[in-house]
């Protein structure tokens, strides 16, 4: 491509880019508001909340829209992009609510509370772009935008040793794996001579690249993408970061960037690597990694006694389940992933929120401190049970429906062994999720156990997350329809 062929972005393209523009605008406004009105975090909080709600409202319009390429071919807007915009706006709203009443974020000694909320807006916008990238450059830039803001968020409690260690581990793992991925991207560019997904696909379909070099490219790329979704063997950072970072941040990381990583992987692999499947069997590669991811996550989670760390390993396991649907390359599998990501966001945010709410009074995430919570704080504990049932995949919760669709998609493609491994893994996960439930209900609390008052806002948010988790287990049609509509115009299938 020569200079004169470079497309100058058209201003009218911004019409298709509104939710992102709103989120980035909210980021700048929140920073500015924080500068003008010092020590009033309510200003940036309100700005970002308004931005996320506006983005949510704006996103629904795009669900049925056909594919449209904007901003000089860097970004594509379609139903799937709209679905992820909705998902990320919802996650942002939930995270804002969780953070506002959290002592870890809003405690008296914390500084720069406004910047924290601004960073949530920036990350949400970045995740939306990740779901829309259709160019190798945009892929890398959006991934790094999300990564750089998440390093800062992980280290938000900058006087805390644990948070500093978390952000240090995060930045080192992240920088190395994204660098390795960039090297892979450069090789892919060399093999195909193009940076756009369409160009790469056409070159690969025309026979560019031998099996060995394509395998190298796949492995290098999976280093960066696998790190984002916490896939074995690029998961090492996840338990430490989730344990050390403030709990609301861990909650955000465990659903937001993970879903964004999946969105990026879906668009990239489905669009570009599909023609190369005869030369490099990346589906089998990902199937093996999927089995390794869920088995490792579940087996290690069994031994955990820190609830945050347990949930970190559980979120690694869930990435394994999602990878099963990912490698099916069918509309059914894709719909199942999208629906599962929605359900996963609800239940995982809910489980983390329970930890945040208790941390305010307990100042601990150790499982032993959860003894007798079923009677010390019955309502919150009951809602935690809903989330745990859903994470296991037991009826009548949303998690059951999500897993059902996911396994059905895998079975329909004839990958029976993979589905069996997935079901066996769900059985293992029952053990450690129920360990939390058992401690809450069947272990007697010590006589001097502190009271556990729960902030009203946390109660409200718990209900807002638990109600759909139960509701979707009984009436999932409407939300499944959302996922089905999102992929109807996805041309890469």
């Amino acid at each position, binding site marked *: *491509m*020569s*200079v004169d062929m*470079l497309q100058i972005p058209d201003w009218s393209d911004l019409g298709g880019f509104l939710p992102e523009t709103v989120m980035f605008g909210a980021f700048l406004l929140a920073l500015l508001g924080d500068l003008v009105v010092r020590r009033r975090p309510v200003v940036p909080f309100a700005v970002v909340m308004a931005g996320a709600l506006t983005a949510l409202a704006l996103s629904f319009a795009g669900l049925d829209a056909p594919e449209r390429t904007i901003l000089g071919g860097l970004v594509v807007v379609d139903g799937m992009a709209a679905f992820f915009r909705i998902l990320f706006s919802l996650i942002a709203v939930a995270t804002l609510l969780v953070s506002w009443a959290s002592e870890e974020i809003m405690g008296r000694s914390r500084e720069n509370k406004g910047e924290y909320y601004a960073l949530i807006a920036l990350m949400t916008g970045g995740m939306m772009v990740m779901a829309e990238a259709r160019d*190798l*450059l945009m892929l*890398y*830039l959006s991934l*790094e935008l999300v990564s*750089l803001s998440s*390093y*800062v968020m992980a*280290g938000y409690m*900058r*006087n*805390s*040793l*644990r948070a*500093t*260690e*978390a*952000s*240090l*581990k995060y*930045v*080192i793992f992240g*920088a*190395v794996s994204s*660098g*390795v991925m*960039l*090297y892979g*991207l*450069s*090789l892919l*560019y*060399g093999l195909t*001579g*193009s*940076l756009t997904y369409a160009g790469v696909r056409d070159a690969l379909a025309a026979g560019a690249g031998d099996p060995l070099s394509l395998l190298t490219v796949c492995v290098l790329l999976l280093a960066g993408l696998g790190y984002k979704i916490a896939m074995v063997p690029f998961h090492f950072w996840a*338990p*430490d970061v989730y*344990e*050390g970072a403030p709990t609301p941040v861990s909650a955000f990381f465990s659903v937001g960037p993970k879903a964004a990583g999946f969105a990026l992987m879906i668009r990239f692999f489905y669009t570009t690597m599909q023609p190369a499947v005869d030369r490099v069997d990346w589906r089998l590669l990902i199937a093996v990694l999927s089995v390794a991811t869920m088995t490792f996550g579940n087996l290690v989670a069994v031994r955990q006694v*820190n609830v945050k*760390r347990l949930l970190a390993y559980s979120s690694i396991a869930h990435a394994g389940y999602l990878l099963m649907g990912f490698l099916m390359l069918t509309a059914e599998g894709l719909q199942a992933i999208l629906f599962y990501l929605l359900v996963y966001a609800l239940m995982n945010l809910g489980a983390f929120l329970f930890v945040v709410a208790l941390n305010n009074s307990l100042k601990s995430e150790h499982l032993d401190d959860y003894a007798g919570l079923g009677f010390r704080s019955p309502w919150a504990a009951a809602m935690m049970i809903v989330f745990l049932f859903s994470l296991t995949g037991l009826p009548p919760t949303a998690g059951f429906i999500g897993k059902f669709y996911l396994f059905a998609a895998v079975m329909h493609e004839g990958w029976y062994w993979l589905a069996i491994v997935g079901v066996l893994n769900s059985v293992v996960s029952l053990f450690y999720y129920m360990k939390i439930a058992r401690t809450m209900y069947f272990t007697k609390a010590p006589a001097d156990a502190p009271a556990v008052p729960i902030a009203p806002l946390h109660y409200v948010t718990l209900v807002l997350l638990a109600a759909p988790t139960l509701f979707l287990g009984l009436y999932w049609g409407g939300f499944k329809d959302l996922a089905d509509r999102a992929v109807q115009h996805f041309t890469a299938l």
Partner: protein
Amino acid sequence: MTVGLEHYLTVSALLFGLGLYAVLTRRNAVALLMGVELILNAANLNFVAFARFVDGGVEGHIVAAFVIVLAAAEAAVALAIVLAMFRNFGTVNVDTVNRLKR
């Protein structure tokens, strides 16, 4: 002898290997980050060489320019975190920072 694509790719592969080696062996956080810079620059060299020899356009050059800017941003964030580490732990050796359970 003319300098062709292979020469660029060899140099970049060497840079990549050295960067990865530095990341895996160095325990000083700043040296680790220097290893990351080597990896990024290896990729940059690839992009520019491929733009010249394969694509014949400017796309690869544009990517390299973006990556240089991004590397600077990443270094700023990473060094800020290393600074926080030095304040809290009094060292920049990554091995001493393992309070979180393995």
